[in-house]
C-alpha cells in the first residue's frame, strides 16, 4: 500500500530522512512516533504527496508517484483520508459542509454520503455542532471534525496526524476505537502521535505496529514499547 525505497528528505543542511525504506502492507495499522520535530508530519506528507522526497521513491497503491501530474495526484488523494495536524477547514462553511467537502469536490452525490455523515458526526460527538462554522469549535472538536472529514468517503488509506493532540483521555480512546474499527474493516491506517499511552492502549485492541523515528531513519518497533 505504502512503499518507501531509500527515501531521503533534507531541509537546508539538516537531513531528516536518509535512505529510508519501508513497506506498509494494505490493511495494516501503524503508529508513527518520535520527539517533536522528528519528522512524523513529514512522513505523512510524503504519503499523501504534499511533499516529494529529495531522493528515493514513494509508491502508493502500487504506483510510482514521482512523475504524477496534478490531476493524478488529486485522483490518488481521493483514496486517502488525511487528518492534518492543524486541521485545515474552509472557515466560512458549516461543519457539515466541511465534512462533506471531499464529496463536493469530487462530484460524489451528497445524498449517498449524507447518512454516513450524520453517523460520523454522532460518533465524534459533533451532532449538535453540525451547523456551526469551524472557528466556533473548540480545539478538540476541530480535530474530531477533521477526522470525520477524513473518513467520510471511506478511503483505503487513512493518515492521522496527532488526532488526539487536543482532546482528553476519554475522547482519545473513542477516536482510537474509530481508527481500530476502520482498520478492522480493511483500511490501512497510519497515525502519528507522541502519546505513548495511546499506543499502549491501541496494542490491546489491534495488531498495531510502531514506526519510531530516530536519527535520520525509521525503525519498526515490535510489540514491546
Amino acid at each position, binding site marked *: 500500500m505504502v512503499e518507501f525505497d531509500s527515501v531521503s528528505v533534507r531541509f537546508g543542511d539538516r537531513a531528516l530522512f536518509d535512505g529510508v525504506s519501508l513497506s506498509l502492507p494494505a490493511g495494516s495499522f501503524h503508529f508513527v512516533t518520535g520527539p517533536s520535530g522528528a519528522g512524523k508530519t513529514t512522513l505523512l506528507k510524503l504519503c499523501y504527496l504534499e511533499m516529494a522526497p529529495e531522493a528515493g521513491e514513494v509508491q502508493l497503491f502500487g504506483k510510482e508517484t514521482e512523475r504524477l501530474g*496534478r490531476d493524478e495526484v*488529486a485522483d490518488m488523494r481521493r483514496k486517502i483520508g*488525511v487528518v492534518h495536524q492543524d486541521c*485545515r477547514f474552509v472557515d466560512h*462553511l458549516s461543519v457539515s*459542509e466541511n465534512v462533506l467537502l471531499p464529496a463536493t*469536490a469530487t*462530484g460524489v452525490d451528497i445524498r449517498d454520503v449524507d447518512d454516513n455523515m450524520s453517523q460520523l458526526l454522532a460518533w465524534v460527538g459533533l451532532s449538535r455542532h453540525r451547523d456551526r462554522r469551524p472557528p466556533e469549535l473548540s480545539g478538540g472538536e476541530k480535530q474530531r471534525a477533521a477526522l470525520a472529514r477524513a473518513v467520510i468517503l471511506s478511503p483505503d488509506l487513512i493518515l492521522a496526524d496527532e488526532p488526539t493532540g487536543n482532546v482528553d483521555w476519554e475522547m482519545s480512546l473513542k477516536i482510537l476505537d474509530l481508527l481500530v474499527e476502520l482498520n478492522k474493516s480493511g483500511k490501512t491506517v497510519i497515525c502519528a502521535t507522541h502519546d505513548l499511552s495511546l499506543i499502549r492502549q491501541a496494542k490491546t485492541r489491534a495488531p498495531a505496529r510502531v514506526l519510531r523515528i530516530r536519527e535520520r531513519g525509521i525503525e519498526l518497533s515490535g510489540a514491546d514499547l
Partner: protein
Amino acid sequence: MIGGLLDRSDSRVERIVPPSGFTASLTVLSAAAMAFLAVFIGAISMSASRVADDWGAALGDKATIRLSAPAETLQDQIDAVMTIAAQTPGVVGARQLTEDEQRALLAPWFGTDAALEGLRLPVLFDLTLEGDGPDIEGLRRRLQGEAPGAVYDDHARWRLPMVRAADRMSSVAGVSLVLIAAIGAAMVALAASASLSANRQIIGVLRLVGAKDVFITRIFVRRFTLRTIGGAVTGSIAGMIVVVLMPGGGGFIDLRFAGAGWLWPALVPLAGGGISYMATRYAAFRRLKELS
C-alpha cells in the same frame, strides 16, 4: 463556455469560495468603467470615421475652376478649360455653372434681388473628381499656359488637415479600444489572481480532499465572468445614456450612434464576458500551478 456559465449553479460548489465583497465590487466597478469607456470611445471612433468619410468624400469629389478673362478671349479660355478638364486624369466631369447657380452663390452678398445683369461675373466650373483627384501642380501649370485667367480651387486647402485629423482621431480611438480591452483583461486577471491568492488556504483544503484544477478554476472563472458581464452591462448602459445625451451640433461633437452603431453598446458586455472568461481562466491556471 456559454453552457458552463449558464448552468444552474450548484450552490454547494459556489459556496466553497466566499463571495469576498470587496474584490467583487472592485471587479464590477472596473468592468463598468471599462465598458463605459469602450462605449464612449467607440462612439468617438465611429463619429470621427464618419466625419472623415463624409469630408473625405466631399473633398475628393468636387473642385472648382474660376475664370475671369477679358470678353475677347473669354470663349477661347472657356473652351481651353473644358478641354484641359476632359484631358486631365482624375477629373471625370466638368460643367460650367449656369447664371442662376452663380446668382444663388452670391445671394448672401448681394441679396436675391440684386441686378447682376450689369456685372461681369467670373465663370465658374464645377469639376467632379475621382480617386485622389488630379495632379494639382500639373493642372495649374497647364491652366496658366492655356487659360491664364483660370484659377483651380480644390476646396481642400483648409479641409485636408481636418480630414487627416478626423482620420487620426478615429485610429487613436481604435487603438484606445484595444488598450481598454487589454487593461480590462489585465484588471480582471489581476482581480482573479488576488482572489485566488487570498483564498489559497481554501484551495489547499480543496486539494487535500482531492479536488482537481478544473473544479477550482470553474468556481473562479464563473464568478468573475458573471461579475464582469454584470459590471459591463451597467457601464454600457451608462455609456449609452451619456452618448445619447451628448450635445449634437455636427462634426466632431456628434457622438450619437447611427445605424449599426447602436449594436455597439450591446456588443461591449459580450466582449467583456469573453475577455473576462479568457483572462480569468488563464490567471487561474497559472496561479494554481504556482500554488502547487
